[in-house]
């Protein structure tokens, strides 16, 4: 190290690591970096096993937090001003268009990534408790993850209202009306959601507070817990089925094991377990991977933001409804379910809002929550992609996911005016205009 570099480093550093091991230890001492263990197996670190979806989700959350705080400097949560402030962000605030697009794209991506992360965890059976891992509690972490999925959707949904445009207002109306279809307490739930009987200033301030303070704080806490639990569960489930060999090691010279009461004599045989997979120290192997994931996640969000605009429709108006009015894409499958389960028998309409909008998704979440405790597949399936012994449950799970995907596709791409089906190449009927 040159003298000048040494001098410049001495301004900010009191010590610099001499080896990878020291650097790794340094990470362990750092509150921000100690989440990762000093050594990680190649399998845990691989792209193929986890696709790093959890880390990507966390990074997207960080991008959202940063861009969100910037937007807060301009945004005014008032029904008179909100829409205009977004127009200002779009047209006159320096780089405002970019920050807003990043916030929106990162939000969509985060919902998608968290969802994909859950699919990955299910398909690799990583939520399971195994006999080997007696101190771990992976089912609990699955539950935290499930809560994080719901929180992510809620965060995105609460943010959806804030621009106070037609898209926002009517998407929220759909959600509120689905909530209203709950028997007995439906009306109260809707009242609570809206802060009144209609969507207005009260709704906006409630959703704003949830969006910028309450939900991010809970989410941050749960993310920390989620990641801490991975360490406490013994790392990723990927390592569970890696063979372990027993190795005779040499005692460290100079230690008096007799005094420590471990063994008799001075030179005992030390046995330890060694995983039969290559491992790497945090620095540089894992750190490199984190860097790559960070750079590419940022690059994807920046690319989308640079080339694709995000919607801002007409100012919110309860006087007229856009046709079709759609919920955000991650709730569109519910809107489709509501459509499917709405049945007309001899002029009597059975509203599908409750069945399609509450019962079916509620059951799915409940089933997901209890599944780790019902799953009886053998330990050999933990941490393995699509093992043959879990073929039935993985198939059923994938079918549900595909069904949700198909419903989202129908809702977002095929649905046109009056909720009719229009193929992408079919033109929608002309909407009358004012002038």
């Amino acid at each position: 190290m040159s003298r000048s570099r040494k001098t410049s480093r001495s301004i900010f550093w009191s010590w610099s690591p001499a080896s990878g091991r020291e650097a790794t230890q340094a990470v362990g001492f750092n509150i921000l970096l100690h989440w990762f263990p000093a050594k990680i197996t190649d399998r845990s670190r691989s792209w193929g096993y986890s696709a790093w979806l959890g880390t990507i989700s966390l990074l997207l959350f960080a991008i959202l937090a940063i861009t969100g705080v910037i937007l807060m400097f301009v945004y005014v949560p008032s029904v008179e001003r909100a829409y205009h402030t977004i127009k200002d962000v779009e047209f006159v605030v320096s780089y405002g268009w970019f920050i807003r697009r990043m916030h929106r794209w990162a939000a969509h991506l985060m919902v998608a990534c968290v969802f994909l992360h859950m699919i990955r965890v299910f398909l690799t059976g990583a939520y399971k408790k195994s006999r080997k891992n007696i101190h771990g509690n992976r089912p609990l972490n699955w539950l935290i993850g499930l809560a994080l999925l719901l929180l992510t959707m809620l965060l995105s949904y609460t943010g959806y209202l804030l621009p106070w445009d037609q898209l926002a207002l009517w998407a929220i109306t759909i959600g509120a009306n689905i909530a209203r279809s709950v028997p007995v307490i439906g009306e109260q739930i809707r009242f609570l959601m809206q802060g009144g009987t209609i969507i207005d200033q009260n709704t906006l301030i409630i959703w704003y507070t949830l969006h910028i303070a309450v939900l991010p704080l809970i989410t941050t806490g749960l993310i920390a817990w989620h990641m801490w639990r991975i360490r406490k569960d013994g790392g990723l489930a990927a390592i569970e089925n890696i063979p372990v060999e027993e190795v005779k090691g040499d005692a460290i010279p100079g230690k008096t094991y007799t005094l420590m009461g471990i063994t008799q004599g001075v030179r005992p045989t030390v046995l330890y377990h060694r995983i039969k997979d290559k491992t790497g120290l945090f620095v540089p192997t894992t750190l490199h991977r984190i860097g790559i994931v960070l750079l590419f996640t940022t690059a994807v969000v920046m690319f989308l933001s640079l080339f694709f605009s995000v919607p801002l429709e007409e100012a919110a108006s309860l006087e007229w409804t856009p046709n079709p009015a759609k919920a955000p894409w991650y709730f569109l499958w519910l809107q489709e379910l509501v459509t499917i389960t709405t049945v007309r028998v001899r002029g009597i309409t059975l509203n599908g809002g409750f069945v399609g909008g509450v019962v079916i998704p509620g059951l799915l979440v409940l089933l997901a929550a209890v599944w780790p405790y019902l799953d009886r597949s053998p330990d050999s399936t933990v941490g393995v992609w699509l093992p043959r012994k879990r073929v039935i449950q993985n198939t059923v799970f994938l079918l549900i996911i595909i069904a949700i995907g198909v419903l989202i596709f129908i809702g977002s791409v095929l649905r046109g005016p009056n909720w009719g089906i229009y193929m992408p190449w079919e033109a929608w009927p002309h909407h009358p205009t004012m002038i």
Partner: protein
Amino acid sequence: MKLRDEKLLVIGSVLVFVLTLGVLVKEQTVEWKKYQKQFIRLVNEKLGPKVAGSVEPGLHQIWNSRLGVTDRCQTCHLGIDIPGLENEQQPFATHPDLEFYKKTHPFKDFGCTTCHDGQGYATRVKDAHGEVHHWLTPMYTTAMAREYGFDDIGPMVQMKCNQCHRKDHQTERMEAINLAKNLVEKHNCTICHIIGGQGRTVGPELTHEGSKFPEEFMFDRVEGKQSILNWHMEHFKNPQKVSKDSLMINFRFSDEEARGLALLMMSWKKDSVAAGFLPSPYRSDLTKPRPAPTIPPGKELDGPTIYRLKYCITCHGEKGRSTTGVYPSLAGQTYYYLVNQLNDIKSGVRKWRNSNIMQPLVQDLTDEQIAAVSKYLSELRRSGEQTAQANQKTEKRNASPEQTQKAE
């Protein structure tokens, strides 16, 4: 493995760097900066460096919260208040008739969208002109005006003028709207419609007609453009064609009249204008209750005069021949029938059909006047078509007297 990761790190860094450059370039090369450069070059050439030096670069915004105006149009339209650029291409031309508008509607107070519509917030051409999805009020363009049969945007802009000038009886430079206001007065629309608190409820209230949204109209019988403005035009030309069961009379308005009236309808908006911006002093208001039509002396017993001045003519038609099937023709009706009906309407005995509209109009008629107008109508000749209809009716009556009477 290690090498691949390092390569990826480099690729990722380069990607983020390039994208960052892209963002910087996009922000710095916005359309309006190009226009400003062009404009300064143009002014330098035409009006000299002194004027060019006075052009301030950067975003220009007119903000008037009282009018709800946030207009950034003059970021590109820099020349609107600089005389001498009348013949330049947009966005650099001087505003036509600059002296008049500078005096009456200074741009720094009124902005642009107050009269022209469009999206004042926007700083990109397409967005600013409102020619994008999700903007309800696009800027008026010559192409748009021609679609409706106007020569230029003048009449379209009058829709906006009249939002403030609503209470004017007649306004300078608002010919299309002035024509429509004359028609409203001539035909006394408040006989059937409430306008600004005056009138009756036979037809829909029109006070805030211009604030309705497309979904409140049926367009399946409207020919041409599917817009509210065109709906009104078509409806004024032939109400029953657009709205099958309409009770409105077909006044046989000309294209020009129908266009003017449609513009007037669109201008009657609910948005309130800050009092300070209303034209002052208020001139006579169309919707004020007007004095009951007085019958000129010497004509008190003149049937045709009574028929016209008591507005019978509005629905029952010129010479007693109704133009729609909705209201009966009275030409050639039996004298005694007319006298009885008029007396019953006057006294309030008759309550069916539109007695409530007619009652206030005939209540001050004397017996002699009733006799005079009935005589006038009974002596008028029916049209051939009406004679045929009457014959048919008689046949029907002969066939089943009870049923027909009930139906009537």
